[in-house]
């Protein structure tokens, strides 16, 4: 066989019966390319937490809406909606039914979509528009006319969400989707609005002695291998590979002024950056 290959006859026979049309393309993707462009570099992508903000209702959401509207006059803002307690309930039922990760991911989208639509209704009179993921390319139009687009936070992976090493909770949820939106757009900032100041050395909901961490590198955070995190682990892993968004900010949206300060570039909350 090897001898036959060396004199070329096997290759020739194969080529004659199955010509490969791709031959001229070999080496195509190996060449050096210029830098990637940034799609919408002045956009700020803001995630509104589901359990942390939306599930608290009017008392938490209305002041935040006011602050978003005030800032939308100065900054381009794209809002991504989280899931929250209803997503957890749906996950629980799906888990009980022995369903796989992909099914959980596909049903998790719906809760995030509900919250996006609710936010849109609250923001409508200030220019809030619901951005269907299929209409993602209309973003420039919405910004051009001064709208505040609101979209579902979940990435569209659904049944194609990969199984994780442990358990069946989808690894890519609304933090991940919102982060990747910012990374693709080459956004100015990605801000996660939650109900804690940011990152603590433990869960402040359960341990009052947990200390606050205002600034930490992704590498350091991953090395600590904490049992719990303030943002989805996959966001940290993606940051290490990212071309654009190398820093994220987590702020407490229950405190008036925090979002404004974050949008103005102030170090409020916790900043996680790639060292």
């Amino acid at each position: 066989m090897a001898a036959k290959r060396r004199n070329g006859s096997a290759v020739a026979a194969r080529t004659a019966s199955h010509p490969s049309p791709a031959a001229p393309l070999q080496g195509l993707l190996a060449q050096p390319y210029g830098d990637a462009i940034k799609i919408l570099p002045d956009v700020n992508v803001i995630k509104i937490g589901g359990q942390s903000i939306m599930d608290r209702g009017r008392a938490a959401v209305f002041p935040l809406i006011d602050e978003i509207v005030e800032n939308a006059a100065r900054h381009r803002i794209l809002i991504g909606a989280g899931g929250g307690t209803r997503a957890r309930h749906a996950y629980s039922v799906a888990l009980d039914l022995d369903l796989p990760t992909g099914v959980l991911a596909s049903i998790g989208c719906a809760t995030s979509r509900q919250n996006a639509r609710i936010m849109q209704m609250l923001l409508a009179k200030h220019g809030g528009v619901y951005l269907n993921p299929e209409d993602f390319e209309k973003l420039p139009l919405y910004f051009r006319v001064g709208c505040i687009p609101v979209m579902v936070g979940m990435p569209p992976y659904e049944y194609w969400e990969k199984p994780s090493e442990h358990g069946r909770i989808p690894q890519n949820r609304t933090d991940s989707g919102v982060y990747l939106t910012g990374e693709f757009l080459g956004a100015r900032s990605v801000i996660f609005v939650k109900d804690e100041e940011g990152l603590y050395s433990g869960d402040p909901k359960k341990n009052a002695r947990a200390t606050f961490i205002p600034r930490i590198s992704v590498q350091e955070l991953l090395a600590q291998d904490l049992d719990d995190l303030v943002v989805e682990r996959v966001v940290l892993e993606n940051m290490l590979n990212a071309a654009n968004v190398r820093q994220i900010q987590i702020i407490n949206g229950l405190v008036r002024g925090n979002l404004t300060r974050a949008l103005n570039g102030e170090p409020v909350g916790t900043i996680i950056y790639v060292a």
Partner: protein
Amino acid sequence: MPSASVAKPHRTHLSSRLMRESLLDKKVISATSTQTELAILPDVNVIALGGQSILDRGKKALVPVLDQIVKARKQHKIIIGVGGGARVRHTFHICLDLGIPLGGLAMVAGAVDEQNTRLVSAVLAKHKGIALNKDHFLDLPLWLEAGMIPIMTGMPPYHYWEPPAGTQRTPTHGEDLGMFMVAEVLGARSMIFVKDEDGLYAEDPKKNPRAEFIPAIEVNRLLALGLADLPIERTVLETLVNARHARQIQIVNGLKPNTVLRAINGEPVGTVIYVGEENAPQRGLWGSRRTPRAMKRTPARARHNSHGR
């Protein structure tokens, strides 16, 4: 500094086992595993047709493979996935040259798969082939029960949300991963990748013509070998490590007669990649004791990534 603590507005919880828990807590996450994960469509076979390796070669390569699938459909339920091929590579080249970011590449690549889906569905229409849009994924049981052969685009719907991969500026989640995930989430009977090579070799057969053919290998061992050149997307292997259902895959050479039919019928005719020795081919679908016919080796083509293969 954290701002002064304020009384937090009340949260309306919906009672569930995940209520108030952090979904980022490792213990909470681990508690959601199960030994009895449901197989949604356990008798379906997923066949991924390579773009560059099969479709781009036209009638001579494609029609014999489709004939085998039509024949196999008499006994087995089958979903076909199609890759993109040369036009995907060309798309990536143009996009990279223009500075389009990763997610943009992932978004536009799918159109090539769509072309190929339409080509295959036209050829297979009289044999019950039907293009299945991902929006109609939930209609699968209907088509399969009606004896149809659904044909899907391989690319997973990651689109603009394709995860960044450092210096690699082409998507790491391509058609192979997309079809692997279909098999995994459905708990399919088999996952067969139809390529233009017999499977895996211990070394690059282009450099060493005596390179040893690997009929079966455990995926962690394969990843540890660090082969620069794989006939399948690396992401598939990395995902196979965590698979709950699709714990064996087979790569077969579709240019050789009857390999696809034999693989669907449970014969190991190419390379079987599996996770964990408990899923070695002897213990699975491809544990047939029939000795595969001595396989002629085909030379590997030069390539720079696995897209559209």
